[in-house]
């Protein structure tokens, strides 16, 4: 299994990145992304390391697909939409290359 960079309880940020919007010279779809748009840039907590799986962003284009660590990441649900019931949450599978560690000062904020 690929070494996992994060452990349960780690605070993480989902990368604020939109590879699917980067233009391609051939005009074909540029990316296949499994990280939902509503979570880009959001803060969450690693709940579990689910294992390692071939990167779907490569598989979708029949490229060699190295395995990447996959996490279950927990997010508070109301801050995502500015509505909802306190205590409700979202639990989502996210690949490691979409996660950044939070700096300690951000954790305190």
């Amino acid at each position, binding site marked *: 299994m690929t070494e996992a960079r994060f452990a349960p309880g780690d605070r993480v940020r989902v990368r604020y990145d939109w590879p699917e919007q980067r233009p391609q010279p051939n005009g074909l779809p540029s990316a296949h992304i*499994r*990280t*939902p748009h*509503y979570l880009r840039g959001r803060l969450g907590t690693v709940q579990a390391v*689910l*294992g390692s*799986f071939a990167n*779907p962003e490569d598989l979708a284009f029949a490229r060699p697909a190295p395995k990447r660590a*996959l996490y279950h990441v*927990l997010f508070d*649900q109301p801050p*995502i*939409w500015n*509505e*909802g*019931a306190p*205590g*409700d*949450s*979202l*639990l*989502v*599978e*996210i*690949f490691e290359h979409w996660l950044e560690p939070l700096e300690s000062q951000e954790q305190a904020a």
Partner: protein
Amino acid sequence: MSAPARPQSIAHLERLIAALTARGLVSEAELAARQASTDRASPEVGARMVARAWLDPEWRALMLRDGAAAAEQMGVSMAGAPPLGVLEDTPTLHHLVVCTLCSCYPRAVLGYPPSWYKSFEYRSRAVREPRAVLAEWGTTLPPGTRLRVVDSTADYRWMVLPLRPAGTEGWSEDRLAALVTRDALVGVALPQVPTALAAE
């Protein structure tokens, strides 16, 4: 009466199968076996897993640790299937499963996904206003229950292990399994004891 015209898609499919067979990538026997296991898969499998978990703590532990291994013990072939994760409801936490990206669904233990699961409306609303979605299903969570929406975005497939309803003490596994609907395994509904039975 003349036979209906064969859709062109069938002809495409047959050419694809012939090409894959010629290259040794699939065999007719493998296709038949996969078709048979797909046809066998239904929510009754997931319901039996849940009923057994309500009765047998060791089985429950196995199911939560490795859903695919538990399904295999139920006679389901999980070869080539994605790993199966089981989400354990508690008196203060309820799970709801959605795939906002497409329609990922634990077919091995629930069969084909219903059309509403694949609808744009369910996929967008389940993560944004899940309690409104549940309300439209007629599902009210007990006060103090937090809702956790599980967006199935990658390599696992997820089913819910709901709470055993009150009033089912002493029930057999078969009788309990009959309470567990497909909708309860996705989390849009809760297992209910029919009023007539509860009065027995």
